[in-house]
């Protein structure tokens, strides 16, 4: 028998001011799955990073644009998608710089995608440039991967 899926959606203006609200949303969803607090915290962080990228790199803080976060959970996993209507970018194609090279280059960026990949079990991107781009992230429940 198929497990019951629960679906949650949040849409907010593209502004870093709304990241706290996005994390709250993710926390609430995570609590419904019975995930451990550290896992929920990590999920918040991964989604924050994905949304911050959309807000900063896709929409340039244009608050007339919207960031959409969709979460679907069942008894096995939480799937979260961050959706934008921007030009389309595939972060899975980026090879994250080493921390050492970032440090010696005095760069402050380049850590977000690395965090997302480290924190989630699956990361994929579905691109329709100008129409809809979705970053899909999956976290399996009771998975021991940090």
């Amino acid at each position, binding site marked *: 028998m198929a497990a019951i899926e629960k679906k949650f959606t949040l849409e907010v203006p593209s502004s*870093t001011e709304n990241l706290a609200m996005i994390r709250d949303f993710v926390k609430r969803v995570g609590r419904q799955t019975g995930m451990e607090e*550290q896992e929920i915290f990590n999920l918040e962080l991964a989604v924050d990073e994905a949304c*911050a990228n959309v807000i900063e790199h896709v929409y340039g803080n244009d608050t007339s644009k919207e960031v959409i976060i969709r979460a679907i959970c069942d008894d096995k996993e939480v799937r979260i998608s961050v959706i934008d209507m921007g030009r389309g970018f595939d972060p899975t194609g980026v090879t994250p710089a080493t*921390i050492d090279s970032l440090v010696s280059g005095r760069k*402050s960026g380049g*850590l977000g995608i*690395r*965090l997302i990949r480290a924190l989630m079990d699956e990361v994929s991107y579905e691109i329709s440039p100008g129409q809809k781009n979705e970053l899909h992230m999956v976290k399996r429940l009771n998975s021991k991967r940090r």
Partner: protein
Amino acid sequence: MSNPFSVQVSCDEGLSLIRLEGFVDAHTAPEFEAAVQNEVVSGRHRLIVDCEKLSYISSAGLGVFMSFIEEVRGSGGDIKICGLLPRVKHTFEILGFHEIFDILDNETIARQRFGTA
């Protein structure tokens, strides 16, 4: 609700103590960055960032540590990080920050590391 954010800076004995409180995300990181920047341009390169009341940090905040560490070390200083809550420490560790930064339990130990306990 998460705590809002604040950053407090104080100087004594040639050390700058930067206390972070609440969350550092892409929204609040610029304020943290400005605080560190202000120390560095004023020639203060011995920094302790006290994270006892830091509830959350994302890459935007972590990037602040990264972008200044070479400069302060080049001037004979350092950025020491102390008081991390376990869940926040985990974020630093995922990125390998413990291999680059001196991460200490509390302010006292951080001061000792600078040789001014």
